[in-house]
């Protein structure tokens, strides 16, 4: 279980997040949505301790996040907010690096490490590109590589910031399947921020809505309604039900 208790963070005079309290349960996929600047990414950064100047508490498996050693924290939480610096590296080598928190010093990667990498290479259809340098890939392929990296880490809490960024439709479906597999055994949690309401509605078990750093609404995909979208995003929408799973599909009116 992951608990955020009364989280607040101030940047200058602006409250980036304010008084947020949430519990994430194992096996859950939770989306956080809201306008740009509402505090979604800040919340992910706090959860991964990438931002440390916050008040309140983050508990992971009933332990304060600050009590984790650097290595244990990276096994417990994965959050990639930066692109890699060395774009000369091959896709395969880069993905192997995701297993570094598990690798014993001076020992090679284990069979299991290689197996996890291969599974995710297959899941994100990266096999033809395994020997390509990162710098030669398109934005969509690169995003798939970054996503595969995050999934390969197999941490208890997987944090994703706008995971559908640059993805084509085919890749979005790969991502949805990978997310479903990740939490299937009920031992892990995915917490992601998204600007894509449809993706959030289709993929998550629970949705949190942030406005100006405050948690203003929380619930299942049912909270995605025209009134909610109008109130928190200022946009008129029409919502239909997906004929496959009954979850909401948001349709935008260009003239609105």
């Amino acid at each position, binding site marked *: 279980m992951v608990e955020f208790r009364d989280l607040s963070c101030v940047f200058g005079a602006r409250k980036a997040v304010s008084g947020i309290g949430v519990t994430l349960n194992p096996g859950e996929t939770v989306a956080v949505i809201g306008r740009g600047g509402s505090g979604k990414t800040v919340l992910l950064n706090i959860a991964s301790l*990438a931002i440390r100047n916050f008040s309140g508490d983050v508990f992971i498996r009933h332990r304060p996040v600050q009590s984790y*050693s*650097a*290595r*244990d*924290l*990276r096994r417990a939480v*994965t959050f*990639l*907010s*930066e*692109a*890699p*610096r*060395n*774009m*000369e*590296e091959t896709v395969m*080598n*880069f993905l*192997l*690096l995701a297993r*570094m*928190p598990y*690798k014993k*010093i*001076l020992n090679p*990667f284990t069979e299991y490490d290689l197996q996890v990498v291969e599974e995710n290479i297959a899941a994100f259809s990266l096999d033809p590109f395994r020997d390509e*340098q*990162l*710098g*030669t*890939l398109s934005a969509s392929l*690169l995003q798939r590589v970054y996503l595969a990296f995050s999934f390969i880490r197999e941490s208890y809490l997987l944090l994703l910031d706008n995971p559908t960024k640059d993805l084509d439709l085919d890749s979005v479906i790969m991502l949805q399947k990978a997310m479903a597999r990740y939490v299937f055994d009920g031992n892990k949690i995915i917490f992601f921020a998204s600007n894509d309401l449809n993706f959030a509605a289709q993929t998550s078990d629970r949705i949190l809505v942030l406005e100006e750093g405050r948690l203003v609404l929380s619930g299942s995909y049912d909270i995605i309604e025209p009134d909610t979208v109008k109130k928190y995003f200022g946009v008129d929408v029409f919502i239909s039900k997906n004929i496959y799973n009954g979850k909401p599909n948001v349709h935008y009116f260009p003239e609105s």
Partner: protein
Amino acid sequence: MVLVCAGTVVFSMMYTDIPPLRTCYYFIASIFSLVLVKLARADSGVRIDYVQSGEAWAGILGALIIFFLVSDNRYLLFLSVWVSVLMYELYIHQLSRGRSSDRLMVGYAFGAMAVVAGVYLVLNGLRLDAVTAILSGICCTEHHAGWIIPVMVLLCTLLYAMERFFVYELLLFSQGEQYFSSGGYPYGKVKFLVLCLRSVSAAVVISFAGVLAGVSAISIMLPEREGVLQDGMTVLVVFSFINIAALMMTYLNTFSVLAAVVVVSYLLHLFGGRRVVNG
């Protein structure tokens, strides 16, 4: 490649007055240049040689100043080369924050500054033969204590072994602080260690081969394969180039050969070292 390398060694022993000990120093410099190439994996983006990166110029400038102002003691000169390179490394990494394009530009600029400073020192009384001695390896003489070679062999073997054992740690380091820390490693401490190791390796190459190992930029053009055999090939290529340059220095004007080696080094890098990098 082994035959070419052996040929240059035999030729230099039979037809020139280059002492065998100096050839040994050139070989050590070749191995350290391989260590430098390997440590370059810790840097992101375009791989650059120690001449293009400006390290060679920083070390040579440090040695020139100490030679001009203080002493011609070889050990002091080696120390001045190492300290100059280390200071330059710390400054450049702080300045460029790992951006290789910035490092390259600063390297070019520092090279130009070193040339201007060298000309200034020569015009103010520094002997030209001292400049050529420093450019071709100030410590590459027969006047060392006997323990230098085994110590250097041990050191380069140790560094090479470390690079092979920690190859994935170096790759992770090259991806930046967030990635390296995510492996549970202390980024700041390892960064300082890498800079120290790199500066020691560069100082040994500069002290034993000057800019002659600048042709190790050729290794950037070699296929990037793993393995001791491939690494051995890189060492032989660099060693052969140094030997050929040293041979030419015995028959032609030393300064012209050194200048030609520097030009070749930059040309190799310009035409062979650039990679397509996104971002």
